[in-house]
């Protein structure tokens, strides 16, 4: 089934098409949710809500951009909504992580889940901005709109998030070595 057929099926509220859509996008979108939310339960909940919204508003999807981008945006928004509820976004916690002198650069050997753990050590606001900018690829303007902050805040939070991650990556590396 092509993507267009899938969309058409979902627009008709066809259960088969809905399940296919879920199967096609759920793992990827689960990954998105997990990047934003510490708690797996929250990530699952965000995923469910995101799919509910996708099914609900798929009639409004215009085939202008990519469907995956549309789905992802919905998921990101859902995750951010959860983040606002569960974790105070703009609470910047001082990075008191003891920096360990790293002997090597951030490396390919670091597993995905380790990186994810690292990401989760970031305060919610930093994490959100970093996720949106570095991974999702949004501009600061967009991020500022999505989070209800200024562009300046978005930029500063990004740089802080980067710095923290950098330190931890090198620290990890140091620990690993």
């Amino acid at each position, binding site marked *: 089934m092509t993507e267009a057929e899938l969309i058409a099926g979902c627009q008709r509220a066809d259960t088969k098409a*809905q*399940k296919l859509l*879920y*199967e096609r996008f*759920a*793992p*990827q979108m*689960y*990954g998105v949710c*997990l*990047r934003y939310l510490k708690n797996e339960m929250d990530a*699952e909940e965000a*995923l*469910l809500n995101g*799919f*509910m919204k996708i*099914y609900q508003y798929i009639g409004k999807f215009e085939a202008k951009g990519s469907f995956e981008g549309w789905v992802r945006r919905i998921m990101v928004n859902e995750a951010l909504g959860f983040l606002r509820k569960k974790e105070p976004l703009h609470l910047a916690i001082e990075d008191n992580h003891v920096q360990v*002198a*790293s*002997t*090597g*650069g*951030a490396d390919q050997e*670091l597993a*995905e889940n380790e*990186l*994810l753990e690292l*990401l989760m050590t970031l305060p919610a606001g930093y994490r959100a901005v*970093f996720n949106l*900018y*570095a*991974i999702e690829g949004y501009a600061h303007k967009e991020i500022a709109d999505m989070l209800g902050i200024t562009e300046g805040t978005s930029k500063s939070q990004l*740089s802080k998030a*980067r*710095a923290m*991650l*950098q330190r931890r*990556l*090198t620290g990890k590396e140091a620990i690993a070595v």
Partner: protein
Amino acid sequence: MKEEKTMRPEDVDKIFKERLGNTSPTPPTDLWNRLQERMQAETAPQEEETRVIPLLARAETRTTTWLYSSIAAAVSLVLSVGVVFYNIQTGTPEVNEVLADKSKTLELHEKPVITAEAPEMTADAGATTEKAPKENNLIPQATDAAPAASNITEADAKPNAVAKATPKVAHLKPAKAIAANKPKATVQPAVAYKASERAEEPAVAAPQPAVQPASLARAAANLNAEPVEIIIKRSAASPPAMASAEEASKGLDKKAKLAKNIFKQVRNLASGENVELSEVGINADKVALSTHIGKQKFSKVINL
């Protein structure tokens, strides 16, 4: 240490994007079931709503149909009650017809009988005032058979009768004229007869012309089936006319002449020609006639 220095912020982004950007961890297997449950939970109220809407719609249609039927019933009830009361007040057309048949109409229809009967009545009664309206009854009828009717009047033309009849002729003529306009022959006489029947009583009591138009109008209104209303207005009173008529009726020749004139004028009226009321001894200045037959309105002002 070198590597640490070389690691730029963009590198951090890159690492995370590459490693985490396209991760697709398997969501818990029961997540689809949960999603389905939630969808059913969400759609269930919608279904209930959709179920409710037709019920409401049905209820609305039911109420509207009930409303319409009740309105129709009320309207028909009011109409029927109105018709019944109107008939009670004015008498049904059937009753009128029966009355008309029972009285003189049947006899009047048959012209030879009339000629025989009318003189008898005038002779028996002796009261000229009573006879006068009867003559009037005959005069409009005479338009159907003008020569025969004219014979009647000529035969029993008493001075008083003619004198008192003449003003009434003026009132009855229009009635006949209107009747002549109508295509139905059976109803036409009924108008004339009814009018004349009613005209009898006021003629006895007070033979004033003012009363007769009213009675004529009433008589005309009696016909429910064909509401014919005739309004006659006379600007000048008839006493001088009567006086002149009495003068005119002194000689037998004059009487005959007058009778002939009357029927001539009646014929003229029936055929739509000009009517000279002065020729029949009526000197009223103006006679305004107006009537409604069906949707048509007829009005005429006759200068005398």
